[in-house]
């Protein structure tokens, strides 16, 4: 095991906010740290102290550590060092940075999931500001965006990110790997207050069940009681056919997404802008999700430069019944949000319903009527949600009851 060299992290001309660590364990000579850093003058001493603390935490007393730092934040430095240590030392011990208290906040089953922004799981520079773009959810991805040999270090980085990046209220999501690897991924995210797990290429109820069981086991071990929700992603013909069963397979499922790149590959067809080739799959997913009482979520739109095409795509997606969409670039988020947000006529109608309901309560009536039309309770709930959403999106003032003229007459 000793006299072995390992490397973690990334370096290169375009890499920012990351560091590469090369660790060589020795039999003698104490700890030698060679630091090359873009922020040497301002943080050189603190980086060296931090690394000494972590090495000592893992009981390493003789080693040469070479660091090539491009302005990595402390949580990145500790993730990279832990990752390089774990390539050489067999240990389950974890060096956990302090957790921000806002990162412990639970999510809600029925919160809006219009936009969820994918962030590659081993690229710190893209994580740090991810929460600023008002996406409903941030997905830290350990699946397709991380090379197989980088999965181990990405898990540690994502774990630290869940503890020390403020996502400013976005739902904290992680897309795990398929199969056994995905179950291992859960050990790095469940104890750290992840809100939602995306299950890629989901094809069976069993997959969901095994993930649910693993989550419950980890919650028990770590004495956690907050909800951790699931969002299976249907990305194959088999998955489409199983979608209703999958949607109903666990109480933790709050939404089901469709992934069109893999699906079209599986179908052996080209993905077109019009989307004729996936019409069946998409309507099937929407129907299955609605039948199961969860949110149907559309695939990502891959042309990040064409905002107009994205806007059209969002509108047709919404028309089919989808309630959200994936984003692969922060600039897509506002377009997706605006598209799925209630339109002015929807808001106006909802206001009328909510006001009619309020009036009925004041009058002590059990039945709500708008004009001559009776209104069912779910309609009131839905109208109230649209009003709340409009307020949250800044489309209505908080105190609209005082500022909106009474239109019930």
């Amino acid at each position, binding site marked *: 095991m000793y006299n072995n060299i390992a490397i973690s992290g990334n370096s290169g001309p375009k890499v*920012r*906010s990351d560091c590469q660590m090369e660790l060589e364990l020795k039999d003698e000579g104490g700890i030698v740290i060679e630091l090359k850093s*873009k*922020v*040497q*003058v*301002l*943080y*050189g*001493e*603190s980086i060296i102290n931090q690394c000494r603390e972590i090495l000592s935490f893992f009981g390493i007393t003789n080693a040469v550590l070479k660091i090539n730092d*491009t*302005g*990595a*934040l*402390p949580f990145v430095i500790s993730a990279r060092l832990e990752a390089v240590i774990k390539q050489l030392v067999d240990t389950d011990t974890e060096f956990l940075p302090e957790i921000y208290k806002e990162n412990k906040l639970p999510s809600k089953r029925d919160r809006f999931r219009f936009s969820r922004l994918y962030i590659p799981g081993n690229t710190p520079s893209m994580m*740090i*500001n991810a929460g*600023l*773009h008002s996406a409903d959810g941030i997905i830290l991805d350990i699946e397709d965006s991380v090379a197989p040999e980088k999965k181990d270090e990405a898990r540690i980085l994502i774990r630290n990110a869940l503890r020390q990046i403020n996502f400013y209220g976005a739902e904290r999501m992680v897309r795990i790997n398929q199969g056994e690897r995905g179950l291992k991924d859960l050990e790095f995210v469940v104890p750290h207050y992840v809100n939602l797990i995306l299950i890629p290429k989901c094809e069976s109820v069993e997959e969901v069940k095994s993930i649910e069981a693993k989550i419950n086991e980890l919650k028990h071990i770590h004495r956690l009681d907050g909800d951790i929700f699931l969002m299976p992603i249907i990305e194959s013909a088999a998955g489409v056919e199983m979608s209703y069963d999958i949607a109903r397979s666990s109480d933790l499922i709050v939404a089901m997404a469709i992934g069109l790149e893999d699906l079209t590959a599986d179908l052996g067809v080209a993905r077109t802008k019009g989307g004729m080739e996936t019409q069946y799959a998409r309507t099937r997913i929407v129907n299955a999700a609605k039948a199961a009482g969860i949110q149907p979520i559309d695939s990502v739109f891959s042309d990040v430069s064409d905002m107009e095409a994205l806007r059209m795509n969002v509108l047709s997606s919404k028309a089919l019944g989808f309630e959200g969409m994936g984003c692969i*670039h*922060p*600039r897509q988020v506002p377009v997706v949000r605006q598209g799925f947000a209630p339109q002015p006529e929807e808001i106006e109608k909802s206001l009328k319903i909510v006001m009619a309901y309020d009036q009925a309560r004041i009058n002590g009536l059990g039945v709500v009527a708008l004009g001559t039309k009776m209104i069912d309770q779910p309609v009131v709930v839905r109208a109230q949600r649209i009003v709340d959403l409009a307020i949250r999106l*800044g489309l209505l003032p908080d105190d609209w009851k005082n500022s909106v003229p009474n239109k019930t007459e």
Partner: protein
Amino acid sequence: MAIPTVINAAGREVPLEINGKPVIPFMGVGKYKPGGNKYGPPISSCSDFPDDGNKVVPTLEEALLRCGIRDGMTISTHHHLRDGDLISNRIFELASVMGVKDLVWFPSASFPCNDPVIKYLEDGTINRIEGSMNGPLGKFVSEGKMKGTAVLRSHGGRVQAIQDGEVKIDIAVLVAPSADSYGNASGTGGKSACGVLGYAKADSIYADKVIVVTDNLVDLPCLPAEIEGNYVDYVVVVDRIGVPEKIVSGTTQITKSPDRLLIAEMTASFLEKSGILRDGVTMQAGAGGTSLAIAVFLHEILKSKGWKAKFGFGGSTLYMVDMLEQGQMGYILDAQAFDLDAVLSVSRNPNHIPYSVFNAYNYHSKGNLTSMMDIMILGATEVDLNFNGNVVTHSDGYLLHGIGGWQNCLHARNVILPLPLFRDRIPVIVDEVTTLCGPGELIDVIITERGIAINPKRTDLHERVRNSGLPLRTIKELKDEAERICGKPEKPVKDDKIVAAIKWVDGTIIDVVRKIKL
């Protein structure tokens, strides 16, 4: 022998003497009142110049010799050819061959293409640079390797120093994309067009000797004559004065960074919701990627409201030209054109007008164009808890930027600094700026991706956006958030030796830069 120092009105320890000449410590904004008269260059006589007006001499070397170049002289240049300038380095190469020593180079700015002058700083041809420096040149100076002390001035401060006789230019070598044999010169036309020559005007009027260097000799008269032949001693024609693709700035690309775009959007939103943006507004925005994005967002708002900006002050770019051509801006008053579209616009649009910094920025004059501007978008490397700004050094203490027009622009009605809260790991909002370039009393709003801080002095602005839904924070809250994310930075270790003096717009010393301890 130690030079005596004092604590100036901004609380900075500054010397009473720089390069052997007495200097005045900063006394506060608008406090120092100059006395005396403007500097007067020697009087010339037409009898010493050819009647046919032909002042062409065969080479730059001969022109320099005829100007009487000798040890200790001050040579000025302008930076309108930006990173494509081929002539400045050539001057010192010639001087070095002639064995001239201890020159002072007084450029209106330097660029990476000027790095070769390090050689002439090392061999004693140049004693010091009084002007901006960045990259390797900044590093050279920061590490205390320059013989004299650098003096950094704003564009307006440079004009003030020339006018007041604080800097006496012995020879001004002014490159011009077009010139006639009499010396009338323009920034348009030819293969090296740069648009305007605003920064060269004061040099042409106040320098003892003036050499115009062009690669496009035109028949008399060369119009518009931004440099007038009456001030010019010699005209030199060369093959190339510049590298065209480097003259047009590479900076005029809208940022693609989603984080910077977010800051730009927040800035436009702040300007709209605060009511600063209105019909008839006057504005200036730079050529950095974020500023350009702000210009685009502001243009959209103006268009949707049917408003028109009264005028924009350039640095002009394609984005300002778009506003002019599409009817959302009345005029562009232009001191420098940053991109090809701006260069073309100056020559074809009568409402796009060359406008000298001579008229716009000089604090020792009868009014300051920048104080009439409603919107002023500026950058900074650091801002501190008192809203003081730094633009010349990075947080590690190295000189990396010139002041440019930054200090002059601080006099605008609303000075807005859109900045990231940290760059890589380096916080932009700090306890105290490394180098003080602009007093906080003139900086109104800091807009970061994580919140907006309004200077507490601007209670009016605060009142106007209080209920706007914008993410308002105190500057302390922003600083704390930066430190929570990045950790508290250490301070760079500095030597006592002063490597550069920072002048305020009135010629007083606002701060100094000390040598980096290696």
